[in-house]
């Protein structure tokens, strides 16, 4: 048993932390206010190679493990959830299918530039009427002699307005639900593919969430990533890692908010002494600290299991569920510690408060995660019923 980071992990964490604090943190407020894609920043981080964190060195990646990726997610989220959402999309969901299933040309055209930060990738599964219930998607992929024709609407697509390529979930057989889903690579400029409305939102601003429209969008047969009907399985391969990554985002946000709360509690005086010396504020500090530590342990435990082998869906779900709920608890308490300044634009507390909510959805809502955890921990029960 050894609960400490290895030397390599420690070094990596320091490096990432320095880079993020230098490059991202100073722009966090402006990213939030403008709610526009921070292109220069995006490129700058690309130059450091972080978008290739999980890809092999041969294609320009870092070849790092899931623990390191979680460290990256945490450090990015400490600075800006909006930017962290963009960067982690690029590292994982936005590029994973091309890495696994893309042709050499597709990789050269999309993946390699994406790793360098020259192109932007995203993934599109959510639709106006379906999210967690992936089997219910309505976007159709109909096979023809030239490949596939995609028709449908996607919603809540991170970076949808600026993405150069999108991995789109569509069904070739709606009656098969999950068994009909395939992922298709669609590049910007493909006829029939257009960007629809933007969802104005309170959280993770900077990572614009868009509607994407596919109107008889013809793609080649090479655009199918892997095989027809296996999309849900492919997604499942990275689902735990997505959850661990979001748990890392929750952790980073919670830590930043906690530091802000601590700072304010030390400096703000009431009745002749700093508010942090009152027991009811001390209690908030203690409750936040213990939840952050519990979240940290659950998150890195899951990441470590992922690297070591032996990760089940349960641990990743627990990490995501607990860490994001802890983050929401922390940003709420920090907002209370700030009093009215908790809603003042000049303090970051309001941004943390808004950003916390963003983490509750992607990778599965807490309600969905609870059903997954219960299924795993109640196996005996399941067995009895069937």
């Amino acid at each position, binding site marked *: 048993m050894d609960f400490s980071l290895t030397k390599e992990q420690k070094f990596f964490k320091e490096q990432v932390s320095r880079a993020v604090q230098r490059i991202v943190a100073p722009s966090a407020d402006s990213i939030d206010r403008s709610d526009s894609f921070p292109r220069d920043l995006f490129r700058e981080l690309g130059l450091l190679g972080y978008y290739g964190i999980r890809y092999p060195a041969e294609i320009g990646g870092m070849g790092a493990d899931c623990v390191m990726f979680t460290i990256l997610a945490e450090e990015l989220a400490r600075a800006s959830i909006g930017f962290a959402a963009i960067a982690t999309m690029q590292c994982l969901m936005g590029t994973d299918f091309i890495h696994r299933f893309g042709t050499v040309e597709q990789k050269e055209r999309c993946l390699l530039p994406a790793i360098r930060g020259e192109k932007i990738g995203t993934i599109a599964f959510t639709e106006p009427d379906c999210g967690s219930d992936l089997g219910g998607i309505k976007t159709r992929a109909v096979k023809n002699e030239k490949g596939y024709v995609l028709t449908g609407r996607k919603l809540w697509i991170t970076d949808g307005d600026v993405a150069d390529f999108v991995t789109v979930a569509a069904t070739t057989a709606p009656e098969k639900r999950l068994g009909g889903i395939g992922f298709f690579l669609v590049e910007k400029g493909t006829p029939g593919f257009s960007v629809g409305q933007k969802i104005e939102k309170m959280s993770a601003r900077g990572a614009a969430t868009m509607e994407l429209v596919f109107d008889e969008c013809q793609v080649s047969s090479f655009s199918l990533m892997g095989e027809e009907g296996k999309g849900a399985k492919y997604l499942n391969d990275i689902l735990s890692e997505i959850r661990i990554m979001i748990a890392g985002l929750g952790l980073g946000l919670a830590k930043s908010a906690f530091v802000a709360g601590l700072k304010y509690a030390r400096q703000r005086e009431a009745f002749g002494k700093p508010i*942090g010396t009152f027991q009811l504020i001390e209690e908030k500090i203690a409750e936040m*600290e213990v939840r952050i530590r519990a979240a940290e342990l*659950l998150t890195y435990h899951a990441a*470590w299991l992922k690297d070591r082998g032996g990760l089940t869906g349960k641990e990743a779900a627990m990490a995501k569920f607990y860490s994001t709920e802890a983050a929401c608890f922390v940003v709420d308490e920090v907002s209370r510690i700030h009093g009215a300044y908790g809603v003042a634009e000049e303090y970051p507390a309001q941004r943390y408060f808004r950003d916390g909510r963003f983490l509750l959805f992607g990778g599965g809502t807490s309600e969905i995660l*609870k059903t997954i955890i*219960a299924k795993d921990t109640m196996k005996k*029960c399941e067995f009895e019923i069937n």
Partner: protein
Amino acid sequence: MDFAFTEEQQFFKKIITDTVDRMVVPRAREIDEKDEFPWELWKDFTKLGYLGLRYPEEIGGMNADPVTAMIFYEQIARGSVGFAQSVIMNILMGTYFVYRFGSQAIKERCLYPAMKGEKIATMCFTEDQSGSDLAATRTTAVKDGNEWIINGTKMWITNGPHADFATVLATTDPSLGAKGLNFFLVEKGTPGFSPGQILDKLGCRGTITGELVFDNVRIPEENMLGAELNKGVEYLAEILDEVRVMTAAMAMGIAQAAYDEGLEYARKRIAFGKPIGTYQLIRAKFADMATEMEASRLLIYSAAWKIKEKLPSRLEAAMAKMFATETCLKVVDEVTRIWGANAFANEYNPQRHFRDARFLLYGGGTHEIIKDFMGRMLIGK
């Protein structure tokens, strides 16, 4: 980074789990109902050598590291908290000062028999007007020639009424507050040392908890357990973290026992034509319980690992104690909800777990004390 138990720890866990299932679990209900010290079980169990868990092999101990010790504390509490309290008192608090500071003669008279279960040990801090606030201790120790004279009354003493020896916290000078505190060894049969009332309590029954009275008790100079005078609080700090994490591990023992009962019941109890374990509102309880228990164990082992590695562990240990105990309280509460009215029936176990869990709130520091400590530490005042 390595979250796994060593092979040795895994093996130990298997052995102790089986032992507890075989020896302790079947007697748990009777221990609780009778609320008498289970002498027979004590004799059977202590033969196995676990009372020397934390002491070196040279003196007959098992030399278990803190992580392994947490595995033990959890399992024994899973069997019976009443019994676990008595056992752990002999392993840890009741013998630590004798082990650390006792003369060879004292060790031979007290420690070695205690490690074999032949003598029963206890530790006395609490008084009727002082608990967490140790500086308010009123029991006095006055030097008279080459003897100490102890006067005072101790309350809430685990194993107290039948202890063969007690490590007693007393002040040499009440005006010094926490800086006047020392530990003294008082053995059964010393004139003036007698048990007072026995407390009839809600949970942890089977552990006999009572009052001890010290009325002009004269003990030899060497019974002052400490290298230097008035450093008692510093010596106590040496085991404080382990005591706290141990309490957390016991909480997980109760929580696991209750959780298993809850799962069993959710499987077989039918409502509206199907097992209640198939309903989302019941399943969510299991998801919450399992997640917080997993987090509790990570905190416990992380804190134990820090103790083992001699890293700063005060904060982690305090967090583990608070988090695991609160989780335990939540679990025993949820399990009584899952069990419906049957949770209220004395013929089943959930009511016992529900009562037992409350006892862990106090030892090692109430959560109000822990939050105050954490808050001050983190705010930096």
